[in-house]
């Protein structure tokens, strides 16, 4: 059974169709890259998976459980949506770190708030908080930021901020980690450090969906690639095959612009 099964997702804003009949599935431990030009619906698709947008049609299943069904309002209740979001993590293009918290606090805030909902939180408060804090510190270490945990976001470079954001998303142990153009807001010399982290996550078999413009990276890191154009999936397949030997003319046209890069 695939860990993620997306069935016939449609999304329109007014009369504009942003997503049309999007279906795909993803196996546990696989990385999927979504490529395509700006405005092709890639970001909207990620936002639908993270319940920041509500699709007009379709279903989203994780581990066989229907998290979202456009025809079933019971799956769209506010309180449950909050829990369902935890199946997914999202790393934003613009990081969106919380400026008033240190790197470590950014990573531990959400786990702390969730821990407060545990029945034994009051009794084991100190123990739980220490555990969350050491897990957060370990995550920052994995991101190569062990010595930056006490820094505030404005004291960090863009690449460091994005790595904190990745640690923050990982802290909740999502089933599927989504990246929305994680390096697009970075200076070219800083993209490498972020891509390296994502690459190592792929090697550790983290299930991921990565919206990216880095074709070489998508080819090397992703197992599958989806090429989207004006809201539809034009081509979908094994990464190397789609990027090096695309079947569709539109995919070829799109990729030719990246040739040599």
């Amino acid at each position, binding site marked *: 059974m695939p860990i993620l099964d997306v069935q016939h997702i449609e999304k329109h804003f007014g009369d504009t169709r942003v997503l049309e009949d999007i279906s795909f599935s993803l196996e546990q431990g696989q990385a999927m890259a979504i490529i395509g030009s700006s405005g092709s619906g890639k970001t909207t698709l990620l936002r639908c998976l993270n*319940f920041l947008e509500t699709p007009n049609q379709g279903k989203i299943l994780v581990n066989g459980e229907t998290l979202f069904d456009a025809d079933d309002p019971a799956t769209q209740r506010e309180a449950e949506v909050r829990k369902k979001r935890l199946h997914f*993590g999202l790393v*934003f293009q613009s990081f*969106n770190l*919380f*400026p008033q918290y240190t790197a470590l606090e950014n990573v531990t805030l*959400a786990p702390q708030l969730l821990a407060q909902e545990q029945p034994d939180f009051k009794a084991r408060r100190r123990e739980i908080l220490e555990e969350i804090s050491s897990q957060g510190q370990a995550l920052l270490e994995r991101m190569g930021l062990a010595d930056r945990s006490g820094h505030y976001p404005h004291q960090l470079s863009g690449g460091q901020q994005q790595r904190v954001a990745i640690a923050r998303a990982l802290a*909740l142990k999502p089933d599927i980690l989504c990246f929305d153009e994680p390096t697009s807001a970075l200076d070219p010399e800083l993209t490498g450090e972020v891509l390296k982290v994502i690459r190592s996550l792929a090697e550790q078999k983290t299930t991921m969906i990565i919206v990216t413009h880095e074709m070489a990276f998508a080819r090397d890191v992703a197992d599958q690639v989806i090429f989207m154009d004006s809201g539809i999936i034009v081509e979908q397949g094994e990464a190397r095959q789609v990027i090096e030997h695309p079947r569709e003319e539109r995919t070829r046209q799109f990729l030719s612009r990246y040739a040599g890069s």
Partner: protein
Amino acid sequence: MLLSVSLTLLEGLVVTLQLFALTLLFALPLGLIISFGSMSRCTPLRAVVRTIVWVIRGTPLMLQILVVFYGPGLMFDLPLLPRFTAAVVTFVINYACYFSEIFRGGIQGVPLGQQEAGLVLGMTKRQIFFKVTLLQVIKRIVPPMGNEFITLVKDTALVRTISVYEIIWMGESYIKKGMIWPLFYTAVFYLVVNGILTLLFGWFEKKLDYFK
């Protein structure tokens, strides 16, 4: 002479500061509620709230003081509110409307991405407001709030129109005795209070300087 005038004016200053403090105490929370109303997704509520804010901000505070104090008696034959109470009521309503606009600006100035980051991390709307947005809003509104606080200290002088014995009223009372300088002397008291406020706001702004 200077001492006895100073003591009399201090008596007036106490009334001034009481009005100042009570206005803040009630107008700050009320302003926050009004700002939520003016950002509400419910169109009729938003329209009503924004109309009230327009009326209150669009008419002179002095006129509002007169309406609140004399209005109920003249129009509905109701007993007059005590003078000081009428002053507090008017100031709370008036300042809550100004504060609401500052809050609205501060809240809407926080990037939407902050809220979305909170949502994807499984936070409730409440947690996002208190743990993520609020401090960023406070940081944004400190400078305009400093302005409003200082304006409020001086606006309290308007309540002498309904004979609340605040500091200007006290200063003016010496004119009958042929002395004009006590009225001018009140400026020193305003300057001291606003000097302290300026220092406090400067300190607070610095306190929040640790993040951007």
